[in-house]
């Protein structure tokens, strides 16, 4: 009986400690660190979207506002990280991390849209340029081969346009 008492006490203590964790689970802090982790991942993803858009032909002028926005998202993420390390303001961590995620997501979306538009424009411009090159080659080939005919045609036109001289007006008078 005496030997059982310390064991039951230990069990009781264990149950009490467990119940404390059940009542106040460390879920909140874990969730916030997840938000911070997501903010970091989204920043990298948005940055990669900008690089992809550049490879697809988006201009620096179009992408500059996105980089500025991404730096704002980075500042929010750094603020969240600072509060997380201090460990005394969980609401601030959540707030800044969510702000950062929002901006990063918008930047990703806009970069993808710019990239797709740039890709379509580049494809259109390239096709048009090569079609123009072929048309020019065709015109040049025809011009070279038909040079004598063109010359004759131009001569004829010049003759037709020329004013007819009826042998001097002074005689008629």
């Amino acid at each position, binding site marked *: 009986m005496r030997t059982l008492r310390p064991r039951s006490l230990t069990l009781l203590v264990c149950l009490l400690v467990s119940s404390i964790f059940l009542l106040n689970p460390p879920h909140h802090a874990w969730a916030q660190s997840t938000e911070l982790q997501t903010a970091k991942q989204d920043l*990298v993803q948005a*940055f*990669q979207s*900008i*690089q992809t858009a*550049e*490879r697809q032909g988006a201009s*620096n002028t179009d*992408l*500059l506002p996105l*980089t500025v926005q*991404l*730096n704002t998202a*980075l500042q929010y993420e*750094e603020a969240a990280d*600072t509060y997380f390390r201090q460990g005394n303001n969980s609401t601030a961590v959540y707030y800044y991390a969510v702000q950062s995620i929002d901006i990063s997501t918008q930047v990703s979306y806009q970069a993808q849209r710019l990239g797709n538009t740039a890709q379509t424009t580049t494809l259109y*411009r*390239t096709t048009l*340029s*090569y079609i*123009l*090159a*072929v048309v*020019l*080659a*065709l015109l*040049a*080939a*025809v011009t*070279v*081969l038909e040079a004598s005919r063109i010359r004759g045609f131009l001569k004829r036109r010049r003759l037709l346009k020329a004013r007819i001289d009826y042998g001097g007006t002074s005689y008629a008078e």
Partner: protein
Amino acid sequence: MEAQATQSRLTPFLVLFISLTAIFSSVTFYAMSSKPSQSFIGFGIYSQNGLQGYLPNSNLTVSVRQTVNWTFAVTNRMNMAEFVMIHTIIGNSSTTPPNATTPSTPPNATALLGATEQFINDGETSRINFTWTIESSYQIAQLTYLNVSIDGQSAVSSAPVGTTSGRNFRLIFELWTFDPVSGSFQYGYPGQTSQVGVWLQVWFNAS
């Protein structure tokens, strides 16, 4: 007879047309190709009041609790946006500085004080404020150690870096760029064959 005449004119036309198409297409390709350029990242530091301390035994003296404002200038000519990080490391005269391939490795005779991150668009020069303060100094075995705060963050000790009478400390700045493939920052920027290390240092005396 007419068919024969057409045949005799078609052959030179085709030869000429194909040749001219090749020439004009080559010109189009050249005009549409991006011009070759050597990509690089420029890295500098300056102060509105003029910055000394590029050489050892400089006259730059920083007092305890004095706020020092410097500015980094980072120029991105990598033909794409870059995510850069600047490591701020404190060292003394015996510290082995980084070189073109290898960064300095804290805590081996150096101490990492902080890191600043920034996204920089292609063709842009980003100016990043760098504010630092010597919050306090302390002495152990005739060596002076500093507690340095960067951009209002909590102070970080310079240990194991200490100097005699607080002379010849140096702040070393290393430029790191984010590598999307490995998902981590790499020292310097990607060159044609390998990473190109970029770093700066400013010498100062603490009083």
